[in-house]
């Protein structure tokens, strides 16, 4: 007898099969990735008219396009004739897509514009209804989200307090815009995708999971470099975690970072570029250098967008126990090229020396969660300590090792997995 999703999520613990049940995974890929706003792409990935990128919405192949008028579209990459994908490259510039199988052609707005040998369809070919499946899209400050839920409230309403946190992240850039066109580093782990979201606002793990990175920094650079504040009693420190609503969560390290540049991890080019920046930019140099360093913010937008430091990490589930994490590098508008050069090298730091240890732990979780006789995963840190506070905007905030964000994720998970959803392309 299969338990309902709600039975598997309790206030203080969740069931291991949430990470191991392939049927649940199949439902998640439609309900969570499409049932509400799901991150698809950043507008800077398609800067020019007729640019496109290939993405996924859950497991659905999708093309995100910018049409010749500049409007963004998200189209299901699936020919309406016999189901083949029509776009076979990851990025490019094209006003239309022609299916390699039978030559059906679609504009980059989705409209069906060409059918070879149409007489075989007689007079009844309704081209208007045979465009590529359209996904409802909205953008917030360059971040493109899509949903297949026609009843989903608008994006800004949905983001709620998370929009303000995203504003703070974007506005660190003097030009108040970030650019996502500096490549990506893709990592795969053999574990369920939710292990990554569990970790995304987990203030408990860094001192242990990232012990190797912290030891290396301590021994080579002494104290005070690159997040060594996680080695203390973190709940007595200045970091916090928050539930921003709708499964969106936030881990705020900024209270431990009085100044970004001096404590930044050493990276190739640091010395030469700092000197060059101070020589060239005078009083602007300080703020530029501050913007070069990771934000100290971990903002997580359910189900798949993790904003970490200065980077955008997208969770891409592949199978119940296989997940790809794509780390997109960013630059900040209104900062000189020297800052971009620093950012590129800095943004390789955590993916090299931090993330691999987390991924090893995720894989080992997947192994342990396969034991049928040990059913439960604890989610109860600070559930009873009464250390949470509620702000005027309704945001609940707790000490950084509070598993509040994990509990918030699961509440949203239950909501979407049990909702009466009628998903449809338009």
């Amino acid at each position, binding site marked *: 007898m299969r338990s309902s999703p709600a039975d598997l999520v309790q206030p203080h613990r969740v069931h291991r099969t949430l990470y191991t049940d392939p049927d649940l995974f199949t439902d998640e890929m439609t309900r969570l990735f499409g049932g509400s706003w799901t991150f698809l792409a950043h507008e800077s990935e398609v800067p020019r008219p007729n640019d496109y990128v290939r993405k996924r919405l859950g497991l659905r192949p999708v093309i995100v396009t910018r049409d010749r008028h500049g409007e963004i579209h998200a189209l299901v990459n699936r020919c309406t004739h016999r189901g083949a994908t029509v776009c076979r490259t990851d990025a490019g510039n094209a006003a239309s897509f022609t299916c390699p199988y039978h030559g059906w052609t679609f504009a980059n707005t989705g409209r069906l514009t060409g059918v070879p040998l149409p007489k075989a369809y007689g007079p009844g070919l309704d081209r208007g209804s045979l465009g590529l499946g359209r996904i409802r899209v909205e953008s917030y400050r360059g971040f493109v989200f899509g949903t297949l839920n026609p009843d989903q409230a608008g994006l800004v309403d949905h983001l709620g307090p998370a929009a303000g946190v995203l504003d703070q992240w974007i506005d660190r850039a003097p030009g108040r815009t970030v650019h996502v066109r500096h490549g990506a580093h893709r990592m795969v782990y053999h574990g369920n995708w939710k292990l990554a979201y569990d970790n995304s606002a987990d203030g408990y793990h860094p001192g242990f999971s990232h012990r190797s990175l912290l030891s290396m920094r301590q021994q*080579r650079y002494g104290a005070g470099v690159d997040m060594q504040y996680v080695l203390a009693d973190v709940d007595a420190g200045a970091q916090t975690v928050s539930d921003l609503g709708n499964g969106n969560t936030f881990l705020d390290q900024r209270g431990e970072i009085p100044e970004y540049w001096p404590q930044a991890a050493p990276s190739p080019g640091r010395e030469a570029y700092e000197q060059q920046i101070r020589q060239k930019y005078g009083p602007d140099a300080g703020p530029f250098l501050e913007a070069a360093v990771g934000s100290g913010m971990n903002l997580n937008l359910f189900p798949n967008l993790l904003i970490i430091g200065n980077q955008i990490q997208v969770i891409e589930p592949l199978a119940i126990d296989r997940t790809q994490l794509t780390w997109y590098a960013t630059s900040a508008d209104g900062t000189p090229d020297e800052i971009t050069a620093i950012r590129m090298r800095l943004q390789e730091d955590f993916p090299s020396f931090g993330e691999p240890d987390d991924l090893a732990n995720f894989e080992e979780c997947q192994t342990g969660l396969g034991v049928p006789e040990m059913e439960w995963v604890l989610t109860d840190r600070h559930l009873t300590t009464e250390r949470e506070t509620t702000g005027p905007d309704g945001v609940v905030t707790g000490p950084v090792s509070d598993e509040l964000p994990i509990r918030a994720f699961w509440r949203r998970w239950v909501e979407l997995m049990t909702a009466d959803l009628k998903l449809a392309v338009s």
Partner: protein
Amino acid sequence: MTLLSDASGPEPATPSTYVDDAFYQLLRDDLVEWNAPGAVPDDRQPLETFLLHEAWLLDQGRYEDWFGLLTDDCLYWVPASPDPGDPQTSVTIACDDRRRLGDRIGWLRTAKAWAQIPPSRTSHLLGAPVEVPTAVAGERKLRSSVIVHETRPGTPPRALAGWCGHVLRTDDGALRIVRKIVVLTDADHGHRNLSFLL
């Protein structure tokens, strides 16, 4: 490979000043030069001996000895795409100067890098190197095919293939690696646990 608890690295971290605009231009120039037709060099014997020795040290986990083959102005570069692009404006899998390579080796030696406990076992298979011309005085460029076969417990063995480029210089009478690039055929694909040295 011995796991120590010593994360201090093969040498202390010191200020690193050589990665600047001119250095990035050098890297862009490198990519142009790597693309030339190569020829098996007349003095292939000492060059191949050196490259095979480097591979041996990596495969034996002798990271400190490997570090000793590098120049003070060295670079270890693993692009995130088979078309490496411009490292000044794009992120990579690894783009380490000497100091960050020291960080990387220190990290591997902490006995707490969970991704490398136990350590990956590698076997580097190099194709015969060809030499491509270079405009940089004192440097020589050797390009070879490479397959790094890697095993870890609990996962099938894999072969990471591509080409590698070694920029060599003779310092104090000994061959040294100035810059090493490893361009994987699947550089832009998702990799599981690529935390070891290629």
